[in-house]
């Protein structure tokens, strides 16, 4: 149903200049109303929803990663003994046999027990709170 507008007012509520007492019609593209606007708004809303959805997804992924990180760092160390020798052996390939013997003699002479670098911590074992007298 067509709406009635005053002589100097368009459907957008904008006053149009009056020429010779006639109301000039608004430009064609401005006249377009209703269905196309709805489509545009729907498209924008759809994009907004997509962006919000993507943002949410990113946040969820970050959250999951953080949780995994917390789990990894939560404290459990499980035994894993590598197939390969874990202690790097000294490179003696290029040394002569005599040099290798000298090197080993030196190592034995300066033999340092691993326990020396792993001294059991001296901690207070009696941490208790006395009763109030």
């Amino acid at each position, binding site marked *: 149903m067509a709406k009635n507008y005053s002589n100097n007012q368009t459907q957008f509520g904008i006053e149009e200049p009056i020429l010779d007492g006639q109301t000039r019609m608004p430009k064609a593209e401005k006249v377009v109303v209703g269905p196309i606007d709805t489509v545009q708004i729907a*498209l*924008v809303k759809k*994009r*907004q929803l997509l*962006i*919000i959805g*993507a*943002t949410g997804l*990113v*946040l969820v992924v*970050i959250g999951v990663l*953080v949780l995994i*990180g*917390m789990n*990894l*760092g*939560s*404290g*459990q*160390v*499980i*035994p*894993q*003994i*590598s*197939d*390969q*020798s*874990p*202690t*790097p052996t000294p490179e003696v390939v290029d040394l002569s*046999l*005599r040099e*290798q*013997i*000298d090197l*080993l*003699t030196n*190592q*034995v*002479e300066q*033999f340092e*027990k*691993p*326990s020396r670098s*792993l001294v*059991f*911590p001296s*901690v*207070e*074992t*009696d*941490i*208790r*709170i*006395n*009763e*109030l*007298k």
Partner: protein
Amino acid sequence: MNQKKLLIKNLALTVVAVAVIWLTITPVLAQSDPLAQPLTLLDGQRISAEELSRHTQALRDLYAKQIESYKFAEKDYQLAKNQQTQLGTLSSVERTTQLAKVAMIERSDVLITYFNLLHNYLVMAEGIDPKDQEKTSAEILSHITDYQAHRQKILFVEDRASLNQIAEEFDQVFAVSTNLVYRVLYALDLSQMNSLRLHAVVLYEKLQQKQADLPLSQTKLAERDRAYLDIDRVFDQISSQIENEQQLAIDETKGGLEIYKQGANLLAQTQANLMKALKYLQELASVI
């Protein structure tokens, strides 16, 4: 145009939101789990020598920080305890309880990191029977779990009586830990010495192979054979010593500390004999 603006606006909002969440969570995590740094190994994961070495170094650094921090916490607790004895007020008890709690948590952290270090050393050690190595590894991990549980309990306790109850439980775990630690330390020392011995044996065999084809006079041959006999005798003695030391390591009748002390003397003798064998090898390699 509007869509582009909207897209940019939303992206900017996303970036800001992520940044805010990240900045909020990171420090919280760091505070909530001080053990996050050292414990990064997964179930069944195999680890290279380099990784293990790096991990061990990280643990060492952490341990140094934790022990320093613990010493301060222990000092604060001792001061508060002395004050409580002098003042005898309710607030002094409250303060001592809080400081005891902090000291107990930090003590747990120190012990957990220490056991992690010990575990890494055990994994790196050569010359230990794989079965013994795995059994001991499981024991160490069990102790780590115990101390973690102990730490968790402390976190949720506020009153004096409950804290004292947890302290009682700690005593039991700690006594078993001490025994285990000294056993492991001795096993590590022994494995190191055994590795050196095996290396010496390999070099001796190489030397024999090298000298086998040398054109030697009868005198030189006799001299060399006498040297071989001397070296064999010393190596036999060392093997026998290592066997005794290995028996000591699995002696269930002895306590960990006793084994460690007794073992240290035995290892010193083995070291002396190994030196003797290597001196012979040096002479043999230079003379002939």
